[in-house]
């Protein structure tokens, strides 16, 4: 990607992000109630999108010869660690370190 293309891509992401932040205030200036469908999607989408992002992260690993085995080991490790300690930063840090170790030394 050229620098100009990078800037356009980042600008598109900024635009998309800002639309989600500003739209409610533009559409419902004072006192208007948003339609039920929008409020409903607003409550359920966050839970689905994180699932989508997890799969997005694994999209290339699944089609490698290992079919995402190192990723799955690290995810299992994070799940156990997080259920046990409930410390977000510790789970992320330890999980990443384990994955880097696996990828660099075992696979």
């Amino acid at each position, binding site marked *: 990607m050229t620098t100009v293309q990078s800037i356009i891509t980042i600008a598109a992401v900024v635009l998309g992000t800002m639309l989600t932040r500003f739209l409610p205030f533009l559409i419902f200036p004072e006192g208007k109630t948003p339609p039920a469908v929008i409020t409903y999607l607003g409550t359920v989408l966050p839970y689905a999108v994180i699932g989508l992002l997890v799969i997005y992260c694994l999209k290339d690993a699944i089609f490698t010869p290992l079919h995402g085995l190192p990723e799955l080991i690290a995810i299992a490790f994070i799940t156990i660690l997080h259920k046990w300690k409930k410390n977000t930063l510790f789970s992320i840090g330890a999980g990443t370190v384990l*994955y880097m170790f696996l990828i660099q030394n075992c696979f």
Partner: protein
Amino acid sequence: MKTKAFKAALPYTLPICAGFLFLGMSYGFLMRSKGFSFIYPMLMSFFIFAGSMEFVTVNLLLSAFNPAHALLLALMVNARHLFYGISMLEKYKNTGFKKLYLIYGMCDESFTINCTVLPSPDVDKGWFMFFVTMLNQIYWVSGATLGALLGYVIHFDVTGIEFVMTALFVVMFIDQWDEMDSHSSALIGVSCSLLCLLVLGSEQFLIPAMSLIIVCFLVQKRLRKDVVR
């Protein structure tokens, strides 16, 4: 008035500070390890200011040029802001010129504080929310910039560092899973995405997956309505 609001806001943002510095630094370090100058994470953390989407944008910048795709993805990943905005319509009223910044900087953490914390009556609410938002953004941008700068100095085998993004989303997924009684939303997200990925492959699956998720929710809503009737 401003000093008082700042002093009231600061303690609430300190717990966020540690998390933002750590995650911001991993993000900046990741970008540097992929060969980007520190300018990129600094400006991206400032202008996008939505953590998950910034991590995803690293991937977008390393794949083929497709701005429409990037726009749709940003809309979908950040759709939760629509909900935040709707919840804050009342609270952000009458905050004058600060309103624009309050909306622009409405990340998950600032929303949570501004939505739940009521400062004492002698503190100006508009300025309180303004400083909460601003402090959180300062932590995040500093973290991202510092992380990238560290990337110039520290050199070790960083193969696999991009897994920090997967780890972040897995942890968020577990937290959300535990706080919900019904897991149907999370399951819809995972199964629709996995199905589209397996059928369509890694290049094509994202937009169909997003559409399928929305269709599933609309159908689910219809079904629930029928049950209520």
